[in-house]
């Protein structure tokens, strides 16, 4: 592995909820790296700790021990405006339920991270137009969320996550609230952005279809790394990668002995 283009380093991450006898270990010392431009998938059964992992990286929760280093900086050292800056500029977050502000238009939602960092929408008009065209949402820019379809909402949310050109986009089940058609559109767009713009995306998902767009998948079980799948982007089709994913998922229920 070429560690020079390593963008994110997760080292011995643990997260324990509760105290004494009520302790629950959600993460038990997970370590991995994410390379720049990689489309990484995190999969696992419910309660395996994948969302906790994502939330630790997103600074939504503090890990009990271990380190998360983004571009050489330990994120646990961020506080106050440093933390706000990290959340807004260094990471983009894509939520399962979109979390668009429903009283703001699509354009206002997209420019919100810009505004929060002192940039006016006018100054970023080019960026907005580019990203809107890439995600095919140009025609809904002046509409409110209530006037959009679920797919359009999630693509607006994706535009919002990408507008500040963050180092990494964290996506928590982004297709979870979408139908098949809209899931496919969204994943095609994210995949294209990852390929063309060399954008790093880390996605938690249950959906093997969505995961088949990734270049690498980490499987987590009981707070530990259980397995890793890499897709040969040059030779392997997403259909055959999908089959491998489904096989691993089937094994997850039966324990590590059955893993191919």
């Amino acid at each position, binding site marked *: 592995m070429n560690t020079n283009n390593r963008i994110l380093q997760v080292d011995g991450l643990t997260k324990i909820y509760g105290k004494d006898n009520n302790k629950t270990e959600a993460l038990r010392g997970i370590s991995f790296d994410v390379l720049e431009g990689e489309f990484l998938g995190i999969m696992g059964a419910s309660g395996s700790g994948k969302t906790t992992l994502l939330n630790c990286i997103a600074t939504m929760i503090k890990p009990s021990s271990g380190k998360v280093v983004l571009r050489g900086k330990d994120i646990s050292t961020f506080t106050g405006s440093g933390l706000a800056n990290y959340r*807004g*500029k260094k990471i983009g977050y894509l939520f399962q339920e979109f979390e668009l502000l429903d009283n*703001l238009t699509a354009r206002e939602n997209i420019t919100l991270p810009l505004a929060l960092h002192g940039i006016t929408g006018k100054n970023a008009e080019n960026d907005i137009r580019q990203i809107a065209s890439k995600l095919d949402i140009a025609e809904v820019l002046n509409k409110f969320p209530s006037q959009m379809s679920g797919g359009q909402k999630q693509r607006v949310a994706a535009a919002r996550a990408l507008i500040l050109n963050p180092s990494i986009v964290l996506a928590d089940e982004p297709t979870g609230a979408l139908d098949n058609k809209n899931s496919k559109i969204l994943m095609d767009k994210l995949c294209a952005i990852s390929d063309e713009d060399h954008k790093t995306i880390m996605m938690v998902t249950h959906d093997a279809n969505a995961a088949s767009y990734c270049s690498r998948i980490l499987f987590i079980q009981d707070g530990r790394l259980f397995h890793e799948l890499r897709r040969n982007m040059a030779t392997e089709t997403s259909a055959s990668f999908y089959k491998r994913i489904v096989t691993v998922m089937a094994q997850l229920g039966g324990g590590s002995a059955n893993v191919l």
Partner: protein
Amino acid sequence: MFFKQVRLNAARNRKGNGLFFGSLVISIIAFYTLLSLDKQDVMRFLGSIESDAVRKLMTLIPLVYVVSLFFVFFLVYFACKYQTDSRRREFGMYLMLGMKRGRLFFMLFCETLWSGLVSLLIGLPVALFLTEGISLVTAKLIGFGIIGHTISFSADAILWAVCGFVIVQLLSMLIICIPIGNAEPAKLLNSAASEKQALTSARKSTAFFIFGILLLLTAYYFGLSEPSGTNMSTYYLSILALLVAGVLGTFLLYRGLGSLIGKLISRKSQKVAGLATFTGRQVQENVLYQHKSLAVSSLLLLIALSCISYGIAVGIGRTTGSRTTDFSVIGTETDVATALKLPEIEEMVETSYPVHLSRTKTKFDTGNMIGALKKILKADNIVQNFHTEYVLSETSYNRLMSAMGKEPIDLSGNKSALYSTMGSNLGDFYNLLNKALKSSVTVGVNGETYSLLPKLYYDNIVADRSITLYTALIVPDELYQKLAKDTEPFCWNIHLKKSLTDKLGLMQATQKMGGYLAKAGFKYDSYLGSIGRNLFYTVATSYLTIYLGILFLLISNTVVGLKYLIQQRRNKHRYITLLMLGADTEDLCRSAKKQIQMFFTLVLSVAVCNSIIAIFTMFTNLTRLPPAVTSMTTTLAAIALSAFVITEIIYISIVKRTACREIRMLEVTDRG
């Protein structure tokens, strides 16, 4: 276990929501203050001299009480709604855990009653303290002194206040609980969902806004224009048109305002950074969804400001005048002299003297006076009506002067003085006559010329303030004997001993002396009795209008504040998303503060504009205030305005503090 849970929940409600608890306490204070009115010193005294009028007022109290109940209901309803809205998730959870709906309702009602009990324990002592204060201050202001003060505790008032409070609270909870009972647990568990932003037709909204402004301007026009003609039906029609145009205009203005704010934001959103767009959209949303509440609050504020202004103006403007004599007794010289020698009366009397005041048949030559008045601007009305038909003896007036500790007048050497009880209270009348007298005016009496003293005399010569003398001539005693139609004294003035009034208070001393005089069979008027009549209507009007005004002020502010807080809590997920997008908690607090300020400003600005016109209309076209008030307009306006501004500042800061506390409690992990 169940009741422990109830107690803990109720305590959490009180701790977490000062506005909720404050509203409950305010409603108790409001009820008790109104209901204990008949136990107040002033009312007890007025009841002893004007029992019919007081009885009429007391029959009016239940009506005002019902009106208060109605309005306080909204106060309590919104406070309880705010409280229960924030707990919908918890209720959903209880239902999912297997709690029966009936038990959930029972729990909520028990919590309500428990909170009510705590509110009563706090509210009632505060109310008692407050009414005592009001009683003492009113008595002091009116000059009764505090010696005759008795505790204004009223068991009936407590009973009714408690009943009203419990009814209002339970009714509010019932109305709030019905939709909760009908809602599916899933709906309760996901209650954070905000209303969807709907696009209203911009053209329609603009039309509403413009139409609203036009209607308000029409109302202003009706208010500011002088009522034309004497036709009463036209007059009432114009008042009706004013009210309809004003109310409808306010509603339409707010109906169209939301979309207008939206347009403004759309135009500016690409040019501003920070949370400006979010702040604007939040305010717009509040206006779009709360336009009816905003209109109602704004109108309530208008009524509040009008009531308070009117109450203060009437209260301050009452025409008490200075205390000249304590009693004026009607009776023959011998009868009065005998009575004054009675030991119980004699020990109370400082001084007594006959008042020689009589009509005269003599026509005075007032040409010189009229000539002087003609030279003064704006005196046309007085010139046309000036006449003098009464004479007053110099000695009587000087006895009054010496009893009051004032300098006596000297009419030796063909002098006379002009007297009028319309004097100082009529402002212009007093000033114009005084000005005319300064130019060495004379009056002709039976061919002889008397020079008038260069000042108008106005101290009430009798205790009865309802007797007003347009003008009278104070003349030397010998001349009085010649001019008077009836040389018998008009009445006898009695002044009470200062030591006695100091010891018993003027109110009690007057009552005691009145009792003796009535027992002796005399007709009499007392200073307090006379101002009492005058005072009764002003105190009653002033008290009730200020009471209603304050109540409306509190209700409208609480409604605006709670409406905002309910909306903020409903939209808390937005704040969490903003935190995730990199907003600082303090940025969010600043945005919330701006939203609150703008939200309140939207209500206040319309209310204040409407109030200025309404108060002006009220004091010019609809009702006439005592003339003394006009000279105090600035002071009154300043008092009312400062009280209003202070109340608003307090409310806005309470809402801001609550909003910021809720934002600071948010964590990015609270999603969902």
